[in-house]
């Protein structure tokens, strides 16, 4: 704390004050470093280092030498199919979550604050209930004699009862219900900020409802759609519970494959390569999000400048 003592020559007020403020800011920096240390050390040891060692393991052959053949294996035959299935199911789920989330968020953003708050509670509370439990709920609902099929048969719906479990329909329904809170929250945050007078202005200038929706509303919501869609896709990529419980053999996702390779086949190198591929896909998604966001910003700025 010797820095804090004013230097003997600092009679002039300005340099003295400057020195004091510099000393204070040094103190604040030290205090910050001291407090940031636990979390940084913890995450470096238990988050960054383990992922780094996964990367190393995925590049190591049986003899310990550098190899890429675990990655070559991942892009071959059955493994490649699982990778493509993962991308397909993630895309289907993100799309469905976006559409359903868009409708709900648009409806909520028109409600009075009290009602909107209540609806958002209904959206958020399920998010904190274990996804495992909610998946089990879907298994009860969608079974051959489950509530949904009984209702459809009761209504003499043509073709009922349907096979809704252990196929892709079941996986997409179950996963969408797990992802929906994210899309609704992200879209609602954007929609709440939209100035509804813009739509009225467009109408006063003679635009039809469809034109207003297409040319005014959707462009205003677009940043939220991009954000929600990509994040949902990323979250689906590594998702395990619902596809494992509600899917059939054709709905195996990468996370299930990693689990099998580690737990049943002791195939750690191959599992590591798959994990790193998931990680790279995630980074690619985040990068795409960033590029689209900055492109959108440039586009909007150009609009206001001209």
């Amino acid at each position, binding site marked *: 704390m010797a820095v804090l003592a004013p230097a003997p020559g600092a009679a002039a007020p300005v340099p003295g004050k400057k020195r004091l403020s510099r000393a204070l800011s040094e103190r604040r920096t030290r205090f910050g470093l001291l407090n940031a240390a636990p979390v940084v050390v913890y995450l470096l040891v238990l988050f960054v280092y383990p992922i780094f060692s996964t990367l190393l393991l995925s590049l190591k052959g049986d003899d310990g030498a550098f190899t890429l053949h675990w990655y070559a294996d991942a892009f071959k035959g059955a493994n490649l199919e699982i990778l493509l299935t993962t991308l397909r199911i993630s895309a289907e789920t993100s799309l469905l979550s976006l559409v359903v989330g868009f409708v*709900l968020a648009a409806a909520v953003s028109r409600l009075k604050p009290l009602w909107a708050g209540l609806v958002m509670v209904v959206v958020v509370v399920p998010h904190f209930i*274990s996804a495992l439990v909610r998946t089990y709920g879907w298994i009860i609902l969608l079974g051959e004699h489950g509530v949904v099929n009984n209702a459809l048969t009761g209504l003499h719906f043509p073709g009922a009862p349907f096979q809704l479990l252990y196929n892709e329909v079941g996986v997409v329904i179950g996963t969408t219900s797990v992802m*929906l809170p994210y899309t609704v929250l992200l879209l609602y945050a954007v929609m709440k900020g939209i100035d509804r007078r813009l739509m009225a202005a467009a109408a006063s200038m003679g635009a039809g409802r469809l034109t207003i929706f297409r040319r005014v509303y959707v462009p205003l919501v677009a940043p939220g759609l991009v954000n929600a869609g990509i994040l949902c896709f990323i979250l689906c990529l590594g998702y395990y519970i619902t596809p494992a419980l509600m899917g059939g053999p054709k709905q195996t996702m990468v996370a299930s494959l990693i689990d099998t390779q580690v737990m049943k086949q002791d195939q750690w190198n191959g599992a590591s390569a798959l994990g790193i591929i998931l990680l790279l896909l995630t980074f690619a998604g985040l990068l795409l999000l*960033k590029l689209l966001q900055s492109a959108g910003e440039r586009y909007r700025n150009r609009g206001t400048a001209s």
Partner: protein
Amino acid sequence: MTELRSTLAGRITLTVLSTLTLLFLVLPIVVIVITSFGKDAFGSFPPSSWTLDWYKVLFADESKWPAALSLSVLVACLSTVFSLVLGMTAATALVRSDLPLRTAVYGLVLAPLVIPQVVIALGLFLFFEPAAMLGSPVAIALGHTVLASPIAVMILMATLKGIDERLEDAAASMGASRLTVARRITLPLAMPGLIAAAIFSFITSFDEFFISQFLSSVDTVTLPVQVFNVLQYDVDPSVTAISAILIGVAVVALALVAVVRRLGGPGQQEGLLPTEPGVGLAAGGETAS
């Protein structure tokens, strides 16, 4: 009239569709609670007669649920303590100091929320396996803290931002030491946030499946892993009862958070759950950009 009025047909369609969507979210939860009281656990719905048998079976002598439940509670408590310590120090560093590389630290803290959980779980498995720590409650709790601490940091950052820094400065100017200021001024004011952070860390750990699955051994299995194994391999109707209990725990925990926020004064009330992971994800996207 500055708003574009929606047509009646449009409003009806929107209402019907959004009601269906809410049902889509709520129905799987309601169906479990109802089925858990039904006599024929896997049979027809709604149940033809009612019973509490499935709950009684859970605590019968040869039941494997109590062991799984107590392990999960132990792990969740440990993880909550770790997350609170890491969360409070990290939030202080990020909100109350001139931290060099602040953006990098903040990005590192939020990163576990966007990285696929299977990658985190695999890494932790490779970390703890050579140390022969698989199945150790401490290892599982340390693993859960990777996911729980970002949530604690976000909640506590919001809490600290809501506390007037001049109160701390005033106490310090009157001669209180840093520790006294923390103990007598900051901690009492941050109490609602600390309780919320503790509850969210607890549920995050209590419900966590993937990391537990990779870090558990044959005889130490957490509750979610046990539920998963039953759903995938055995047929055990008491799983409906345990699922209903998990739902109850989550709802009670969220209700507690709501009560604490309400008691925490007017500054703490905006929104019931302003710090859910969804917002964290949005923030994660921001830092990644």
